[in-house]
């Protein structure tokens, strides 16, 4: 079972992201369970959503306390909320930012991490570019497909097209594809060892 936790702020589509992730997994014939943190947070407040992906029925209903991957939709949360709580060693981290992990002040924390699991993508810019709205959730899903390897990009795109329609769908698909390409390139470079996050 693969467990993902998504951090963001109210209004950034955090819950939608988790749900689309589960839809993408479902589209691949897998079982998936997405759920929000059940809060009553309003726009701007830190929020969390979860997604479990497995090959058998998911019965577990506890919150995800030891995620395999973390998606951080808003880098300003990094020093306000313990976003990495319970993250498994060498778990995947995907952050919406144009900065590096070092620039974000996370260098020490991830020093011994598998660099191929540490990715950033300027999802906000991509969203503005392709969709025209500052909603980073969908591009991040494209990036997630690249980093975690648990889902195919095409599944994510299908989920996007199920969720949205018309121009919004097309823009989001384009943003997701570009994010996917960016992350894939980052990972390839990381594997080659060209880039360190130190």
């Amino acid at each position, binding site marked *: 079972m693969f467990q993902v936790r998504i951090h963001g702020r109210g209004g950034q589509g955090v*819950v939608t992201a*988790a*749900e689309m992730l*589960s*839809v993408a*997994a*479902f*589209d691949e014939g897998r*079982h*998936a*369970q*997405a*759920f*929000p*943190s*059940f809060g*009553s947070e309003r726009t701007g407040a830190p929020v*969390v959503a979860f997604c479990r992906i497995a090959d058998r029925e*998911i*019965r*577990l*209903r*506890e*919150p*995800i*306390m030891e995620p395999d991957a973390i998606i951080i939709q808003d880098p300003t949360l990094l020093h306000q909320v*313990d976003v990495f709580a319970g993250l498994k060693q060498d778990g995947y981290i995907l952050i919406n930012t144009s900065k590096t992990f070092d620039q974000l002040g996370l260098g020490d924390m991830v020093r011994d991490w598998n660099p191929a699991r540490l990715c950033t993508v300027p999802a906000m810019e991509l969203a503005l570019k392709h969709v025209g709205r500052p909603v980073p959730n969908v591009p991040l899903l494209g990036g997630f497909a690249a980093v975690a390897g648990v889902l195919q990009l095409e599944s994510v795109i299908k989920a996007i097209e199920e969720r949205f329609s018309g121009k919004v769908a097309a823009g989001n698909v384009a943003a997701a594809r570009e994010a996917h390409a960016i992350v894939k390139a980052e990972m390839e470079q990381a594997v080659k060892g060209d880039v360190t996050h130190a």
Partner: protein
Amino acid sequence: MLKQMEGSRAVAEAVALCRPEVICAYPISPQTHIVEALGEMVKEGALASCEFINVESEFAAMSVAIGASAAGARSYTATASQGLLYMAEAVFNAAGLGLPIVMTVANRAIGAPINIWNDHSDALSQRDSGWLQLFAETNQEALDLHIQAFRLAEELSLPIMVCMDGFILTHAFERVDMPTQEQVDAYLPAYSPRQVLDPDEPVSIGAMVGPEAFMEVRYLAHAKQMEALKLIPAYAAEFKAVFGRDSGGLMHTYRSEDAETIIVAMGSVLGTIKDTVDEMRDSGHRIGVLGITCFRPFPVAAVADALRQAKRFVVLEKSMAIGLGGILAVNVRMAVTGMGLKGYTVVAGLGGRAITMKSLHALFRQGEKDELEPVTFLDLDWKAVNKQLEREKAHRRSGPVAEALLRDVGIVGARNY
């Protein structure tokens, strides 16, 4: 058809497949997504021949449902928590009048302190209202139970609450098998009311009944619920024949055949319990699960049968009889009266407190060794509780309890994950 969707949406679509004629809606978390979806379906015409009424309170919601049902319309509403309490008078009334209304209760705690998260306090507060109460373990079951509920309610002329855990199920996106309209139509006949307000055959419904007949009326309500104990498994069996899956019924057992310890619970926590039990079984524990689907009527005989071979049972419930302990536990204990079983009550998950496998492992092991107190409070922060008790001893004006506790545990500690 398999679909990945939110539990609320799944329930809404299932309700729509049941061709409801009047739906009344008043918003309360975490029920809102259900009625929002239904409202949209009515407005866009996907759900035809249905009146969707935005009322001014839950009391009105149930009252509109009462009127609509009495006038022969298949009627539905949904609520939770305070909303259920606010409509309580009408809830009892609907049952007393014998009106087959189906209502989703998106289970949520009752304040004060106000709390929007899940437990079973709301539904269980209405356990003696005369409604049938069915608890869903999964969104699939929630969906299925609604289809069965309309049939049951209308056959018995009694209202039914389908209870599903707020947020945990209502807001969870997961796989469901959504039946077709043809399947539902094959299973659920058109509503043929036992009594109806009709100028061609006028009757007075809701007479004042004095001591000379009141007990008889009450007994008949009880007798109907006893009748339901037979109908529910029968309808579940028919359901399986049409839809191809086990859903509903009075209860489900899991790995309990040779179990010495049986965990009894209701609702979505059964999934976490089953995962825990699987792990314990893997390491040789003789432990099993009894999931109660039908809380009202309470299947006394079936529960007794399910527990007969065990040495002990642990009732893990998301509800509490303050001043006594458990609510579900009391019902289970009545079922096993005289059987010599050891029984433990565990109050867990109140107000959305996460019930984790880790805690369950420890709890069940304690249970197996008969080390549990008669009433246990799972993952209770004793430090905070004791501090408050000390404070109250020390100061007359110790202030509001909930706020003091929040200060003690801190904002991060208050997160539910």
